[in-house]
């Protein structure tokens, strides 16, 4: 039995075999279909039904033909919300298309955010030496307040010293 030839044709019989050849899956949720939960697929997704939960897709997501998605969507390629599609949730995508008539509410994050963390680290390093001189400046000033603290107690004795003087004069 030479299974190599026929096996390549049996794509419908072996859906779990996706990805090994670099081929990606393509899932369609029809108008009567409903998904509640988290979905991760390596491929494309088309939603014409209802999804309640998170979607993470390596390819593209298309929501149209009355499709409704409630939950966060991550698409490494493209997200399309068609004119009859509805999406309520935060979106993290490389490309975003919203057609006129579509319903969409949520936070949109596009583009690479890799460059941000190194900048924050640099700012921290710059901030550290900037604080040290301030502390060094504060140090000599700190001696003055220490001296300044002494007069207040001295002022109390000052008030108390007068009575002894008056006492002395009285005596």
């Amino acid at each position, binding site marked *: 039995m030479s299974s190599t030839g026929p096996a390549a044709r049996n794509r419908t019989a072996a859906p779990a075999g996706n990805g090994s050849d670099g081929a990606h899956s393509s899932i369609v949720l029809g108008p009567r279909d409903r998904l509640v939960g988290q979905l991760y697929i390596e491929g494309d997704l088309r939603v014409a039904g209802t999804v309640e939960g998170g979607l993470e897709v390596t390819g593209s997501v298309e929501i149209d033909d009355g499709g409704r998605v409630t939950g966060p969507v991550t698409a490494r390629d*493209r997200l399309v919300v068609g004119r009859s599609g509805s999406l309520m949730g935060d979106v993290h995508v490389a490309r975003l298309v*919203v057609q*006129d*008539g*579509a319903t*969409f*509410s949520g*936070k*949109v994050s*596009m583009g690479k955010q890799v460059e941000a963390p190194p900048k924050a680290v640099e700012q921290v390093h710059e901030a550290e030496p900037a604080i040290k001189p301030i502390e060094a400046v504060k140090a000599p000033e700190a001696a003055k307040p220490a001296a300044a603290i002494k007069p207040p107690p001295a002022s109390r004795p000052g008030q108390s010293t007068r009575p002894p003087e008056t006492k002395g004069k009285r005596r």
Partner: protein
Amino acid sequence: MDVQEAVAESTPGASAEDNGDAKRDGQRKFTMGPNDSLEGKLVFDGSVHVDGRAEGEFKVTGNLDVAQGATARISIEAANVTVKGQVEGSVTVRDKLTLGKNARLSGDIVVRRLQIDDGASLNGHVRMGDIEQHGSGG
């Protein structure tokens, strides 16, 4: 090339006439060129075409469009907004917001209808629904 620099201080009529106010089909239009810049607050009864560089707050009764190549750091409030350039700021649109293929928008959006063309870049929060005529924030 003359570079016009306008600082509009809530004087829509006067500033508009000095900066290319044109009437098209009876509607007043405030048009900026690619070398123009505007810093400040603009309240305008009509439509506004933003090009060059804009910074501040734009409240427009009609439509507002940001040309390709334009850089705008503004908060926008208009009936319809079309962005083909770069905008940084909050956008409140009473009817429809369109982001062209080269548009780059960074800011929160409140809109009734939304169209985003492939290639556009958006970072911010989107809220769709009916917009109150007068903003609560003032």
